């Protein structure tokens, strides 16, 4: 069937209209896209720490807490007005039935008083100031959790049942604090802490980041394409392609039920930039062909362009997809979903590249504004000399030994962010936000309520608490000694552990009677064969959690005989530690798999194993250079930042493929490819450098590392694939020597003044 260009344009217009309507319908589901950040998504479902957490929940119940810090700016908690204002705040807060039912105030909570009074005919009485002061000094639970070290803060606790529930409580806390502030302006500050608070805030931050970075990446792409091709049609086409790719990808993500998370939030920027890499080659080749053969028809040129570029563009998309898909081999669901959605995004982009783009080139007149004359700025020959690459490698790669792993959730915010400020304040004022749970199960017929077992537990707790990273600890012996003190004389010191089983049972019985069964159950399961110790850690970073973990393991070995107890370690600190270790480890698997599969695919499709191997070698070399640089710069590898490795394989391989599988044969053609690769590196790096503007420091670091790996990949690919030429010709011919000026000269040229 033959088609006139005019009819082709009508058909394209009609198809675009239909496509737009279809797109609108398809992207309707974006409204259902949720934002959720959850550290559990980064761990394998079979991860030991998740199994430990599950076992701990089953034995001791869910105890994830939300902490409300009520801080007097000048007043101490012992000031009667402080207590009065706290009561007002609590009354405002507990207007909500659910909050009223579940809120816990450890500081002013009624306690057992052995002195009977006629006016208060019951056992539990509101505490007075001397009693609270004594309790803070003597007891473990009240002493560590009830009040701040400055004496100006009372802590309230609330079970954190869900992320949305926490967001709702935060809202009510703010409202109650505003009412108090209207009565006592500036007298109090109310803060809310909890893992969910950090994660909710991170969810909001990544969405804000996305809203800011995506328009920037579109703008940068538009400017660069305009600078390169001086055609509004091409700029419009590239923006249309990027917009459609992002919209369709997000719609598919929403339809599949995957939320916008820490990892998936960077996908729109990634696919916007990576998706247009093909177009650089399409437009450039099309315009080059048109300038070389001005009498050939546009459809014929577009077809020629598609035929020339189908293999390299499909290959680079495929290897990039392989880079993303290699995340499936990891055990972290968050990375698997990231790889899946990014892969889908690139596939959508490729589909548009090989269908819509050639069609538009064929039927829409491309007005290219004549550019000012320019002269080529040649890359220095020493820079492309293999000896320089060798020297650079010798200098940079040893930096790898300086690399170390470290990360933490608060590192996803700038140090000035209110969340970070609040968490740091809480670490100084109280026990810190992150904890390590140690569950011990007796393997024999004994019970943890036996006095000898309690003594062993107390010894274990002392051993672990001696480490400076442990800021607080709580255990069953603490509960018993605290209650023994509460039932006795307030002036007396904290009693030792009970030496009789009946006394242990009596003390534990009071927890049930005083409506505090939950507290006891947090440390002792129903059968009394499993107990839990809770250790608060100084910080949420990997290093701290790792040290505490080793301390726990060694203390257990010292305290118990082999086979006496079975230990399991869980808790937010341990989860953080395990996930960082797992992610960074998984990146290695992902990179190796990605390189291996890319090698097989390229080798099979091209039947040129040698070239494919050189592509892979160039890419791997580039990654080593970047890793070494990161080591020298003191960058720490974390969840997000280590992802650059797999991404670097996916994207960085493009340059080797272009260098290896281009159709040109002469030295001038080789230079043309080098220039296209340079332009590609420049544009993609510029687009991805938008990530460095992220408010999230780890994403900014990831952006830096990806850009570094792209530049390094382009460089190693050019050097390695120029070796053959170097053997044949002494120097690389510049574009200046070519008869036809290259449309991409702008990237490697400087404009002359008119």
């Amino acid at each position: 069937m033959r088609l006139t260009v005019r009819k082709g344009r009508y058909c394209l217009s009609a198809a675009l209209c239909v496509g737009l309507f279809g797109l609108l319908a398809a992207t309707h589901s974006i409204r259902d896209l949720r934002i959720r950040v959850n550290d559990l998504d980064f761990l394998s479902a079979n991860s030991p720490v998740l199994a430990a957490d599950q076992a701990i929940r089953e034995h001791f119940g869910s105890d994830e807490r939300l902490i409300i810090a009520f801080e007097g700016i000048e007043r101490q908690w012992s000031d009667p007005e402080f207590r009065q204002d706290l009561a007002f705040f609590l009354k405002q807060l507990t207007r909500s039935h659910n909050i009223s039912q579940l809120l816990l105030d450890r500081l002013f909570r009624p306690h057992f008083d052995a002195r009977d009074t006629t006016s208060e005919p019951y056992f539990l009485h509101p505490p007075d100031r001397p009693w609270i002061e004594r309790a803070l000094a003597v007891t473990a639970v009240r002493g560590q959790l009830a009040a701040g070290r400055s004496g100006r803060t009372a802590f309230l606790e609330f079970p954190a049942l869900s992320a949305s529930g926490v967001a709702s409580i935060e809202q009510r806390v703010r409202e109650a604090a505003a009412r108090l502030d209207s009565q006592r302006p500036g007298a109090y500050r109310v803060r809310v802490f909890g893992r969910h608070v950090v994660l909710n805030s991170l969810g909001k931050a990544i969405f804000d980041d996305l809203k800011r970075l995506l328009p920037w990446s579109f703008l940068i792409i538009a400017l660069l394409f305009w600078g390169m091709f001086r055609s509004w049609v091409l700029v419009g086409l590239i923006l249309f392609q990027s917009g459609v790719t992002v919209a369709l990808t997000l719609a598919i993500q929403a339809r599949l039920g995957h939320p916008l998370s820490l990892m998936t939030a960077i996908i729109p920027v990634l696919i916007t930039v990576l998706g247009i890499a093909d177009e650089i080659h399409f437009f450039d080749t099309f315009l080059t062909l048109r300038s070389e053969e001005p009498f050939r028809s546009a459809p014929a040129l577009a077809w020629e362009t598609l035929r020339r570029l189908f293999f390299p563009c499909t290959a680079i998309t495929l290897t990039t997809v392989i880079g993303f898909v290699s995340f499936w081999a990891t055990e972290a669901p968050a990375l698997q979903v990231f790889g899946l959605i990014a892969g889908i995004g690139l596939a959508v982009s490729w589909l548009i590249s090989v269908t819509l783009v050639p069609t538009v080139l064929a039927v829409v007149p491309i007005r290219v504004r004549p550019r000012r004359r320019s002269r080529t700025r040649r890359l220095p020959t020493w820079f492309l000399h293999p000896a320089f690459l060798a020297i650079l490698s010798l200098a940079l790669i040893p930096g790898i030994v300086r690399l170390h792993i470290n990360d933490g959730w608060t590192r996803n915010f700038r140090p000035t962010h209110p969340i970070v400020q609040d968490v740091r304040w809480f670490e100084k004022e109280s026990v810190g936000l992150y904890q390590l749970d140690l569950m011990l199960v007796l393997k024999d017929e004994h019970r943890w309520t036996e006095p000898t077992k309690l003594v062993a537990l107390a010894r274990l707790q002392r051993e672990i608490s001696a480490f400076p990273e442990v800021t607080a600890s709580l255990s069953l012996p603490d509960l018993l000694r605290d209650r023994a003190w509460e039932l006795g004389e307030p002036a007396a010191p904290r009693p030792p552990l009970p030496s009789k089983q009946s006394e242990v049972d009596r003390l534990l019985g009071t927890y049930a009677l005083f409506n505090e069964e939950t507290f006891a159950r947090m440390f002792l399961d129903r059968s009394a064969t499993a107990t839990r110790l809770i250790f608060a850690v100084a910080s949420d970073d990997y290093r701290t959690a790792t040290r505490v973990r080793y301390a726990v393991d060694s203390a257990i070995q010292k305290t118990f005989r082999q086979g006496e107890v079975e230990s399991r370690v869980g808790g937010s600190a341990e989860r953080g530690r395990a996930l960082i270790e797992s992610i960074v480890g998984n990146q290695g698997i992902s990179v190796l798999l990605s390189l291996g599969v890319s090698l097989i695919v390229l080798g099979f499709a091209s039947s040129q194993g040698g070239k494919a191997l050189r592509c892979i070698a160039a890419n791997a070399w580039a990654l080593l250079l970047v890793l070494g640089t990161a080591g020298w710069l003191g960058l720490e590898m974390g969840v997000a930042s280590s992802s650059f490795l797999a991404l670097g394989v996916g994207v960085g391989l493009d340059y080797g493929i272009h260098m290896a599988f281009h159709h040109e044969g002469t030295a001038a053609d080789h230079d043309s490819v080098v220039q296209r690769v340079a332009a590609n590196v420049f544009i993609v790096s510029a687009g991805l450098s938008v990530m460095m503007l992220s408010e999230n420091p780890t994403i900014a670091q990831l952006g830096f590392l990806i850009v570094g790996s792209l530049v390094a990949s382009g460089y190693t690919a050019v050097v390695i694939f120029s070796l053959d030429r170097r053997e044949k010709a002494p120097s690389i011919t510049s574009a200046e020597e070519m008869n036809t000026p290259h449309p991409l000269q702008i990237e490697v040229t400087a404009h002359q003044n008119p």
Partner: protein
Amino acid sequence: MKPHIDPLADDCQEGEDGRVARLSHSRLPASSAKMERRMATLFLLALVLIAWQALRTKPLGPPSLEIVTKKGEQLLPVAVPSWRSDPDLPLKLPERLAFLKERALLWPGVGNMEGLSDCQVFVRLSPQHWAWRPASLIQVQQWLGTRRAGGSVKAWQLLHFPAVSFLDDDDGDGDPLDARELLEAGPGAEVEVFCGSAAPPSGGRP
């Protein structure tokens, strides 16, 4: 000298009959067509894999919520709150009994409850909650120290349990309530005893 390029030149490249050149006209070697086909096949394979993986990757949900206290072991709120005022107790016995039952936990050391349906005893532990236990007439009389043959107790009595008595366990049976520890006059924690018609068999704990 760069030739002048007319941006609309593409339109002029149509044939005389207004039709474009055949699109199959390509200057690429035949080997590249083979490579393209292989690459296209591999790409399609990758798309199939992606679609397969998309269908089998289920979104993760939050971990399940576990509550390890059973019904009756824990009342809400979690612990005695400091911001709640004392409740107004109903004056009529049936309503009062029902009110206390709703706010009562099980008294420790009760053991076997068979034959303990004569009376229902509520010890006030805090302004907001009580501890409940069923008791026989004989037990109530023992606690009062008034046990005698054919003795009776009132349908409702307000007694008092001193804190000191709560702290000891004279007979070592695990039950803090021992003989002669309930007093008719305070001070001490309030103990409400419902017996006979005022304490209808409820078929177990509240």
